[in-house]
C-alpha cells in the first residue's frame, strides 16, 4: 500500500505544480499529470531505463511540488485554495483515494482471457523486471507489440512495492477518474447542481456503453476491475477533448494538452485512430475559432500562424509517439526473428489506413489488399447491419447511442449562445470521426484480423463502444461547458435535463448490474479459482531451482490455462510447450491415433499429435528443467506414461504437479499440492 500512497502523493505534487505554475485548472491537472507520467515512462522504457526514469519522475514530482508550494500566486490564501479545490478535482481525489483503500481491502484479481494473454501478464512482467514487457523473458513465441501507455501507468503506481493486480486496476481507474474530472472541468462550486449529475453520468458511462445483459450469472461485471484497454481508450479520447475545451477557457498553458493527446494514441494500436480524431478536433478548434479579442475575419487572422503551428503540434504529438513505438517494435521483431521467434507482425494500422484511402479513391493497391477486397465489402455490410440491430449497450444498438449523443450535441449547439458555430463544428467533426473510425474498423476486419474474425465480426461491440464512450463523454463535456457559464432560464432547464439523464442512466445501470455482481460488492469467492491456481503455481515454484524453465501440460486446455499459468509462474518462465505448426501454447498432447472426435471441441481443435519419442524430444529440446502437469487425462496417460519414471503414479494420485527433467528421464518431485 505504501507504493500506492507514494504514487498518489507524487501525482498530487505534480498536479499542484501544474495548477499553480502552469495555471492548469485543478480538475484538469490529474489528466495532464498522468499523461506526462505515461509519456515519460514510455520514453524511458523504450530507452531501457524504466526504473531510473521512474525515479527521476518521482523526484521531478517532488521538485515541482516544492516549487509550487513556494511560489506565491496572485490572490493567494483563500483564492489559491479555491483554485485547487474545485468540484472536478474533489471528485477525482475522493474517488481515487476511496478506490485505493477499497481495492487494498478487497484485492480483486485478473480473471479474463486477455488479461492473461496480454494486459495483466505484460503489467506483471514490467513490474517484476523493472523493464518494458517487450524485453522481458516469457514463453510467448511472438513479440508483444501492443502500446505501453496503460502498462507504464500501472508501473507508476507500484514502482516502490510488489506487484498486485489490484494496483493495476487502481491505475486504470485513476486514469478514468482523471478524465471524468476533465469532463466536469472548470465547473464552480456554486454550480454543483451541474457537477454532481455530470459526475454521476461519467460514473455510469463504462457500464452503460458496454453492458447489454443482466449480470445475474455467476460472471461478475468487471467494469472498474479490468486491465483491458478498450474502455480507457474511449474515456481518454473523450477526456482529451474535454481537457482542451476547459483549458482554452482558462489561462492554462496550452502545451499541456500535447501529452494528453500522446497518451490517447498510446493505449491500444487499434484505437490509435481515436487520438487522431481527438487531435483533429483540438486542432480544428484552435485554428478555426479565436477565444476573446477582436471579432470577425481580422480577429481570426490575428495569431493564425501561431495557432496553426500549435494545431500541427497537436497532430504530431500522438503520431510521433506512435511511429516511435512502431520503429522500436520493428527493431525488436527483427531481433526476435534472429533468435528463432516469429519475425512477422500483422499489417500496421497506418499502412492499412493509407491503403484504405487508395481503395476509396479507386487507386491500385497491392495484391495483399486486392485479394481481400471481398472481405472489406462483407465487413462493411455486416457492420452496417450491426449498427441498427446488434445490442451493444444498455440503450440497445449503436444507432441509439449515436442518436443520444447527437441529441446532446444538438442541445449544446442550441444553448451555446455566442459559440454556436464552434459547438456545431465540434459536433459535425466528431460525427465525421465516427464515420472514419467505422471505416478503419472495417479495414481492420478485412486486412488485419483473421478471416474467421471478419466473418463473425468478432468483438465488434468491444471495438466500437470505445468510440461511443469517447463521443458521449465529449458531448457531456461540451454540454457542461456551455451550461456552466449561463444563468438564464434555458440553461437552468438544461441543468435539469442533465440531472434527469443522470437518474435515467443510474436507474438503467442499477437495473442491469446487480451491486453484488459488480465492483461495488463482489464476493471474494469469485476469485477463488484464481487464488487456487496462483497457490498451485507458487507451490510448484517452491520445489524448483531458481531460474528454471517449465514445460506445461494441461489436457483439454484451449490456451487459457497456458496463458494464465504463464502469468502465475512469473518470473519463472512457462515454455511455449509445443511448436507453432502443431499448435503450442496450451492444448492436448497425445498419440496421433488417439485424437478425439469433434464433439470434444477443445481436445479436437487444440490437439498436438506426438508419438512418445517425439514428445520426449520436444520436452528435451525445449530446454525445460521441469514439467508442470496441471491436468492429465487418459489420452496423456496412455500416450506418455512410459516416459515418466513412476508411470505418472504420483500425478494420478494427486501427490505432485511437478516432474523433473533429468538425464532424459522425467521423475516426480515431492510437493504439497494446494487444494
Amino acid at each position, binding site marked *: 500500500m505504501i507504493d500506492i500512497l507514494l504514487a498518489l502523493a507524487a501525482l498530487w505534487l505534480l498536479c499542484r505544480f501544474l495548477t499553480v505554475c502552469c495555471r492548469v485548472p485543478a480538475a484538469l491537472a490529474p489528466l495532464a499529470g498522468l499523461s506526462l507520467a505515461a509519456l515519460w515512462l514510455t520514453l524511458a522504457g523504450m530507452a531501457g531505463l524504466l526504473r531510473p526514469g521512474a525515479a527521476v519522475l518521482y523526484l521531478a514530482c517532488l521538485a515541482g511540488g516544492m516549487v509550487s508550494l513556494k511560489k506565491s500566486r496572485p490572490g493567494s490564501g483563500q483564492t489559491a485554495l479555491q483554485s485547487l479545490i474545485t468540484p472536478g478535482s474533489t471528485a477525482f481525489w475522493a474517488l481515487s483515494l476511496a478506490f485505493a483503500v477499497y481495492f487494498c481491502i478487497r484485492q480483486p484479481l485478473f480473471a479474463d482471457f486477455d488479461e492473461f494473454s496480454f494486459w495483466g501478464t505484460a503489467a506483471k512482467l514490467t513490474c517484476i523486471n523493472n523493464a518494458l514487457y517487450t524485453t522481458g523473458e516469457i514463453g510467448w513465441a511472438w513479440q508483444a507489440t501492443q502500446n505501453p501507455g496503460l502498462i507504464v501507468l500501472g508501473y507508476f503506481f507500484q514502482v516502490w512495492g510488489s506487484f498486485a493486480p489490484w494496483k493495476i486496476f487502481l491505475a486504470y481507474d485513476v486514469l478514468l477518474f482523471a478524465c471524468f474530472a476533465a469532463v466536469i472541468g472548470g465547473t464552480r462550486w*456554486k454550480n454543483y447542481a451541474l457537477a*454532481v449529475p455530470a459526475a*454521476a453520468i461519467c460514473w455510469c458511462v463504462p457500464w452503460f456503453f458496454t453492458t447489454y445483459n443482466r449480470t445475474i450469472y*455467476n460472471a461478475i461485471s468487471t467494469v472498474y476491475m479490468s486491465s483491458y484497454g478498450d474502455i480507457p481508450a474511449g474515456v481518454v479520447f473523450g477526456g482529451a477533448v474535454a481537457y482542451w475545451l476547459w483549458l482554452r477557457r482558462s489561462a492554462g498553458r496550452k502545451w499541456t494538452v500535447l501529452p494528453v493527446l500522446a497518451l490517447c494514441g498510446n493505449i491500444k494500436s487499434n484505437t490509435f485512430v481515436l487520438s487522431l480524431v481527438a487531435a483533429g478536433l483540438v486542432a480544428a478548434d484552435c485554428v478555426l475559432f479565436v477565444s476573446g479579442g477582436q471579432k470577425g475575419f481580422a480577429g481570426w487572422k490575428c495569431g493564425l500562424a501561431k495557432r496553426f503551428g500549435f494545431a500541427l503540434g497537436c497532430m504530431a504529438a500522438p503520431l510521433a509517439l506512435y511511429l516511435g513505438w512502431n520503429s522500436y517494435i520493428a527493431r525488436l521483431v527483427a531481433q526476435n526473428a534472429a533468435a528463432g521467434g516469429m519475425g512477422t507482425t500483422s499489417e500496421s494500422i497506418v499502412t492499412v489506413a493509407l491503403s484504405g484511402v487508395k481503395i476509396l479513391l479507386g487507386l491500385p493497391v497491392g495484391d495483399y489488399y486486392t485479394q481481400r477486397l471481398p472481405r472489406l465489402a462483407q465487413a462493411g455490410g455486416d457492420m452496417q447491419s450491426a449498427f441498427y440491430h446488434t445490442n451493444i449497450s444498455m440503450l440497445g444498438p449503436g444507432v441509439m447511442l449515436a442518436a443520444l449523443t447527437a441529441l446532446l450535441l444538438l442541445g449544446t449547439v442550441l444553448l451555446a449562445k455566442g459559440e454556436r458555430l464552434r459547438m456545431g463544428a465540434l459536433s459535425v467533426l466528431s460525427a465525421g470521426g465516427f464515420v472514419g473510425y467505422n471505416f478503419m474498423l472495417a479495414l481492420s476486419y478485412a486486412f488485419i484480423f483473421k478471416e474467421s474474425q471478419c466473418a463473425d465480426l468478432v468483438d465488434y461491440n468491444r471495438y466500437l463502444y470505445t468510440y461511443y464512450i469517447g463521443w458521449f463523454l465529449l458531448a457531456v463535456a461540451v454540454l457542461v461547458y456551455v451550461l456552466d457559464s449561463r444563468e438564464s432560464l434555458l440553461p*437552468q432547464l438544461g441543468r435539469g435535463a442533465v440531472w434527469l439523464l443522470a437518474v435515467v442512466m443510474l436507474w438503467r445501470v442499477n437495473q442491469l448490474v446487480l451491486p*453484488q455482481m459488480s465492483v461495488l460488492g463482489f464476493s*471474494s469467492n469469485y476469485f477463488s479459482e484464481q487464488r487456487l491456481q496462483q497457490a498451485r503455481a507458487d507451490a510448484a515454484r517452491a520445489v524448483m531451482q531458481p531460474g528454471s524453465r517449465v514445460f506445461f501440460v494441461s489436457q483439454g486446455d484451449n490456451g487459457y490455462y497456458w496463458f494464465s499459468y504463464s502469468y502465475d509462474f512469473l518470473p519463472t518462465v512457462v515454455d511455449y510447450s509445443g511448436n507453432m505448426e502443431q499448435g503450442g501454447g496450451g492444448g492436448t498432447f497425445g498419440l496421433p491415433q488417439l485424437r478425439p472426435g469433434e464433439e470434444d471441441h477443445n481436445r479436437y481443435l487444440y490437439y498436438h499429435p506426438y508419438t512418445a519419442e517425439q514428445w520426449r524430444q520436444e520436452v528435451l529440446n525445449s530446454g525445460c528443467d521441469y514439467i508442470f502437469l496441471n491436468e492429465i487425462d487418459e489420452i496423456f496417460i496412455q500416450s506418455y506414461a512410459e516416459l515418466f519414471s513412476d508411470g505418472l503414479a504420483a500425478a494420478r494420485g494427486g501427490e505432485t504437479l511437478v516432474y523433473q527433467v533429468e538425464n532424459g528421464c522425467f521423475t516426480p518431485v515431492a510437493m504439497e499440492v494446494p487444494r
Partner: protein
Amino acid sequence: MKKQWQKAAALLQKPWGLAAVCYAAALAGWLLYGVFCLGSDSLSAVRGSLREQSMTVQDFQLVNLEQTGENTLYTLNGDPQMILPDVSGQKIRSLTIQAQYTKDAREMCLYYTTAPGQDFSQEKRVFAVQADDGTCTYTLPRTRICALRLDPCSPAENELLTMTVESITLNAPRSAAAYFAPGWAGAFNLILWPGMAAALLNIAAGLLRLLLKGRKPA
C-alpha cells in the same frame, strides 16, 4: 424562534446548505430505518414469529431435480427449482444456502409470493449476495411472504450438474450492527443520492427564482 428560521434560511442559501441538509437527512433516515428494522425483528423474535430454521433438502418440493443422496441433487434440465409452498405462518427475512456444485451454477435466485395462490413472477425475486466463504444469502423484502421458490442454479444446456447442499437456513441470525451496516454499494448510494437530491433541489430553487424574477414588474 424567528432567528432560528432565519439562520436555517441563510444556511439553505449557501452553496453547501442544501447538500448538508440532504446528507444529514439521509444519514438520519438510514439510522432510523436500522432502528426500526432491529426493533421490529427483535419484537417478532420474542413473539416467536421470526425464528431461525435449519432446512434439509427433504423439506422442499423438488422440480427438475433428482435427489441422488441425502444432500445431493442432480439437475434434470436448465431450470431446477426447490419450492416451499406455504411459509405464511411465520416471518421470513432471509434464506441462506451453502452448496457445492460440480459445474458452473450460473444464475441463482429466490422467488417469493405475497398472497396465497399467487404465481411466482419475475417481479418478485431476489438475487443472492455471496459471502467470501461462498455462502449465498437472499434477503427478502419486509413484507408478508407466503411461498418461496429457490432456483439454486441454472446449468447450461448439456452441462447438467450435481449439487451438494451443506446447509439451508431461514432467518439466519443477524447481529445488531448488521442492521446499520450499509455495505459497499449502500455506502456508495448514501454518498451519491443525497448529492443528487441536493442538486435537484438547487435546480428547482434556481428555476423558481428565475420564474419569479421574470414576473416582477419592470
